[in-house]
């Protein structure tokens, strides 16, 4: 029962201390390899070099949704099993998810300017990612508004679960809204499958960014555990002095 073993924060800290240097190394190597492959990849015959934004944009867009799934699993861990590390995991994941979503939005916007001629379009996908970003920010605000960490964890867990149910509904309704109001001029038709020269760098970058998330997540969880220890020590010190 690895998950039960990890419930002990000290054991978790010891394990991640051994794991993190390797993870950092592998992530850096993969990221370099992916960037090099992306650099070598051929330009698109229509979009030219701007298509290379995709190698950053698509992995971030994937992660923006993946992080919410991770937080949903952590929320279940908090509410159902009261796993002590689950709320740490959920809290550490929220700003990372917001950051990945933000990068996806910004790169998408920068990509849209040369190809679509506009920084922002109320396209269904962009709109639902923007709403996802707002929900990340709301979740972070909720984390910060409650002082007691375990109570904040349970409130945030409920909001995460509600979001997990609602995000598909929002996505569906935004799709519906967009197709009703404007013709599908920007949504490109399926087209041919991605050529291997582009697909392979994309997959490497996706793996590199996923590892980046794992590395940052573990590091943020370590920081959160240490932050809580410092807080507890300060409280004990203050109580002792009083």
């Amino acid at each position, binding site marked *: 029962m690895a998950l039960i073993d990890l419930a002990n924060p000290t054991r978790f800290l010891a394990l991640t201390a051994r794991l993190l240097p390797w993870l950092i190394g592998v992530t850096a190597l993969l990221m370099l390899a992916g960037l090099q492959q992306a650099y070598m990849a051929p330009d698109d015959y229509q979009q030219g070099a701007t298509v290379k934004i995709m190698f950053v944009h698509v992995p971030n867009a994937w992660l923006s949704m993946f992080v919410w799934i991770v937080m949903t699993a952590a929320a279940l861990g908090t509410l159902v099993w009261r796993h002590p590390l689950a709320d740490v995991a959920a809290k550490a994941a929220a700003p990372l998810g917001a950051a990945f979503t933000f990068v996806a939005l910004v790169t998408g916007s920068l990509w849209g300017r040369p190809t679509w001629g506009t920084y922002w379009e109320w396209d269904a996908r962009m709109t639902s990612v923007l709403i996802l970003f707002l929900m990340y920010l*709301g979740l972070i*605000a909720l984390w910060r508004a409650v002082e007691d960490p375990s*109570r904040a964890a349970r409130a945030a867990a*409920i*909001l995460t679960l509600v979001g997990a*149910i609602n995000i598909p*509904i*929002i996505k569906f309704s935004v799709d*519906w809204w967009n197709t009703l109001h404007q013709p599908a001029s920007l949504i490109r038709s399926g087209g041919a499958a991605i050529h291997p020269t582009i697909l392979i760098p994309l997959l490497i970058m996706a793996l590199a960014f996923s590892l980046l998330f794992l590395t940052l997540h573990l590091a943020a969880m370590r920081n959160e555990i240490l932050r809580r220890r410092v807080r507890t020590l300060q409280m004990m010190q203050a109580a002792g002095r009083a």
Partner: protein
Amino acid sequence: MTALGALIRRDLLIAIRAGGGALIGVLFFLTVVVLIPFAIGPDLPLLKRIGPSILWLGAMLASLLTLERLFTADQDDGSLDLLIMSRTPLELTCVAKALAHWIASGLPLVVATPLFGLLLNLEPKESLTVALTLLVGTPALTLTGMIGAALAVTLRRGGLLLAVLVLPLSIPVLIFGVAASNAAALEPSSFGTPFSILCAITLTTLVIGPVAAAASLREGLD
């Protein structure tokens, strides 16, 4: 059942007798509707075109305004603890509270809508359609908002956070409410689809809202 009936009765009496709660929501709704022409100019054709959207936005903001009181008053006088500890399932208590809150603050918005439609140059039939969509949609706003109200009940600065948490979750209601209202005006044949989906969303929130609100009340206050 009698406990829930008593709870609904009590909440309604408080809403009617203390501070004119329902009327403040309607007054805020009216103010929003009046402000829009100042912002975009007294252009009657334009107002007629965006009228349903303005009414929906106004009603949404007005229902948000009254949401904070849903649990905080009970929290202040301690009756929330009694409600949580009582033998009635907390989920049903939440449904009862949402129902009372909707009758006190959502229904007046619906009733006022046909009147405010006149200010926006809407035909009576269009106004009545918007009122119909609001009649179906405002319960969903209350039920979704109840989750936020339950999460924010223990916070010091709950009000702003409540809006930030609840508004993104209400986007589907807004989309289909406005779509149904516009469809009725432009092409009556396509009214049914968005209206049915709006009903479906309301029914979905009837399940999710009380369960999530009850869970966060239990988790937040122990």
